[in-house]
C-alpha cells in the first residue's frame, strides 16, 4: 500500500511537471461574471446596502462568534477576528487537506472544522448557516486575486477538473468549454454567456430568490446540458472548482455576487 501511494505520488509529480510546462488555456482577457449581468443587477451587487447577499453575510458574522456548536467553541474562539484572520483565506481554496489528502473547498473546510474541532454536526450543504459562513469568510478576501495551488498533491485533482471542463457530457453533448470559452458573449435564451468565472460565488440569484453556492450553479449548468446533476460537494465538482479557481486567478474575488 505504501509503495502504491509512493508510486502514485511520483506519477502525480510527473503530471504536475507536464501541467506546468503545458498549462491549459485561459480566457485572454478575464471578465468577472457580473459584467454579463444587466446594469441594474451590477449596481445592486456593487452596493452593499442593496446587495441581498449581504443579509447572509450578516448572519455569517453572527455565526462566527456563536458558541452554539457541539462543545461550545465558536469560530472566533480559535480564529479571532475574521476581518484579520480570514483575509485572503478564500483565495487559497479549494486546497489539499494536509491530514487527509482530500481536496477541500471552503464549505468542506468549514464542516471539517465543525466536526473535528468544534465536535458539532456538519452543516448540510446549501443550508443557510453554511452559505452564510462561506459568504462571510469569502467577503474577507474581496478584491484579492486567487492563489490556488495546482501542483504537487493537487495536480491530479486539477487535471480531473480540467478534464471535466473540456469533456462533452449530457444529452446535449456539450462541454463547459464550448459555451464558456468558445461562445462567450453570445445569447443563450435570455442570458449572455459568461466566461464561467467563479469569483462571484456564493451569490444571490434572483431566479432562486435566495443565496446559492457555486455547486448549486454547477448543478444548474449540468441540468442545462441534460447531464447528471452531481451531488453538492461531490469530488468532481470540487475538482472542477479548483480548475475554475485557477482559470479566474487574474480576477479579484468579488463575492458575494448578484445574478439574474
Amino acid at each position, binding site marked *: 500500500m505504501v509503495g502504491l501511494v509512493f508510486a502514485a505520488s511520483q506519477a502525480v509529480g510527473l503530471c504536475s511537471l507536464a501541467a506546468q510546462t503545458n498549462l491549459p488555456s485561459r480566457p485572454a482577457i478575464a471578465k468577472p461574471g457580473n459584467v454579463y449581468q444587466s446594469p441594474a443587477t451590477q449596481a445592486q451587487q456593487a452596493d452593499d*446596502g*442593496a446587495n441581498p447577499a449581504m*443579509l447572509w453575510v450578516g448572519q455569517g458574522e453572527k455565526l462566527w462568534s456563536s458558541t452554539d456548536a457541539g462543545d461550545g467553541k465558536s469560530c472566533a474562539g480559535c480564529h479571532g477576528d475574521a476581518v484579520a484572520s480570514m483575509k485572503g483565506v478564500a483565495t487559497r481554496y479549494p486546497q489539499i487537506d494536509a491530514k487527509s489528502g482530500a481536496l477541500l473547498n471552503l464549505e468542506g473546510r468549514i464542516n471539517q472544522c465543525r466536526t473535528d474541532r468544534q465536535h458539532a454536526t456538519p452543516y448540510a450543504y446549501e443550508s443557510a448557516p453554511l452559505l452564510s459562513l462561506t459568504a462571510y469568510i469569502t467577503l474577507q478576501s474581496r478584491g484579492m486575486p486567487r492563489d490556488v495551488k495546482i501542483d504537487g498533491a493537487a495536480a491530479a485533482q486539477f487535471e480531473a477538473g480540467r478534464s471535466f471542463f473540456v469533456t462533452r457530457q449530457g444529452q446535449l453533448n456539450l462541454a463547459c468549454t464550448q459555451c464558456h470559452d468558445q461562445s462567450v458573449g453570445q445569447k443563450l435564451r435570455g442570458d449572455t454567456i459568461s466566461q464561467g468565472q467563479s469569483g462571484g460565488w456564493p451569490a*444571490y440569484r434572483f431566479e432562486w*430568490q*435566495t443565496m446559492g453556492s457555486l455547486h448549486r450553479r454547477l448543478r444548474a449548468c449540468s441540468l442545462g446540458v441534460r447531464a447528471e446533476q452531481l451531488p453538492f460537494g461531490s469530488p468532481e465538482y470540487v475538482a472542477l472548482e479548483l480548475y475554475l479557481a485557477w482559470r479566474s486567478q487574474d480576477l479579484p474575488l468579488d463575492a458575494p455576487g448578484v445574478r439574474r
Partner: protein
Amino acid sequence: MADTPHPTRISMPATAKRGDIIDIKTLIQHEMETGYRRDANGRVIPRDIVAHFEVRYLDEIIFAADTFAGVSANPYFAFSTIVGDSGPVTFTWTDLAGRKTVETRTLTVT
C-alpha cells in the same frame, strides 16, 4: 425561514446636516411565501409574507408600503428623506400574522 424578528440590513448615514436629502436603503431576509405553492405531499404551503412596511422619523411616517404575494423574497426598499431634527428612525416590517420586526437607527443632525 428564520423566526421573527427577521435579519435586516439598513443603510443610512448616521449624521447629516439639516435640510439635507439622505438616501435610506433597507433589506429584510424573508421568504415571502406566496401561498400558491405546494409541498412534496401536495399540501398548500401557507402564505407568509411581509404585508406592511413603515418607517417613522421622530414618530412621523416618512415611508410606508403595503406588500403582497407578488413581491419577491427578501424585499428591498430604498427611499430618500429630508433631514430635520436629531432623533430616532424606526423601521417596522409587519407580516400577515401581525408579527413585527423592528429596527431603530439614530440620525444625528450636525
